[in-house]
């Protein structure tokens, strides 16, 4: 798993937010478009792409996209 690729998959779940906004340091909970449905989409994307099951509490614990990347990595 590679960080930039993870950020790209993360960004793909959004409709309105410009792709350039997404970096490893992005504090994703603060994005206007972030919602409960997007959280579910990101959990499902991680399951599809990385075969890792993360929980709602993991989404909550992660501040930046890189934090989430590290959580996923620790479960691989």
């Amino acid at each position, binding site marked *: 798993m590679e960080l930039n690729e993870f950020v790209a998959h993360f960004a793909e779940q959004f409709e309105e937010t410009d792709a350039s906004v997404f970096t490893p340091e992005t504090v994703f909970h603060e994005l206007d478009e972030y919602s409960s449905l997007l959280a579910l989409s990101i*959990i*499902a994307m991680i399951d599809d792409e990385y075969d890792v099951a993360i*929980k*709602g*509490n993991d*989404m*909550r614990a992660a501040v930046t996209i890189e934090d989430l990347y590290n959580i996923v990595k620790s479960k691989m």
Partner: protein
Amino acid sequence: MSYNPFTLEGKTILITGASSGIGRATAIECSKLGAHVVITGRNAERLQETYDQLEGDGHMQVIADLTDAESLEQLVAEMPQIDGLINNAGIGYTKPITFIKQSDLDAMFAANTYAPVLLTKLLTKKKKINKGGSIVFTSSIAALVENMGNSVYSMTKAAIMSFAKSCALEFSEKGIRVNSVHPGMVETKLIHDGAISEDDMQKDMLNYPLKRYGKPEEIAWSIIYLLSDASAWVTGTQSVIDGGMHLK
């Protein structure tokens, strides 16, 4: 005083998915009201935990995977005559529509829809349910109210609600009543499979007019009403037990 129109004294009741949650609570409550219960589940250890909490005697436990045709036939073959059937076993699933896979649909419909349909068919075909008997399906408020990420679960539960109504019509000739119960969020292990964070669940609870999720016993008591002779003129209904969530 022994007056109790809700008694289950003398009735034998089969409960699927009895190894946890609503199924476990229903089995225990039924035994407390005098029923002989037959409990089934996939997990031997957890099924035994339920069995150990049953009151009275004459109970049975059968380990079965209802999505497996052979296991299903075996269960039906082992069944005594029954007065009540609670089709309760089910699994959860929370994914947005854009992530649905064929294999997820197959697994969800197999467990939540096909298994209870086929169990009901086999038991009635083999005339294992006595005249005056009652069948209850554990559907969900999800069959009536949509939620983000819940499309597949909702479909399986709406299908079983519809099947319950068909059963009510066809089995009226056999003197068997059929109803479904529709719980809102109940504090069981099945809750969203962890996809929703605890924080979000706390917030979600506040959306319920009664400001909390349900307890498994609160669903059990509604099921017990539908099993008892107190509901002898009730068939083809949908009982909503959701702390008022459907009002929102």
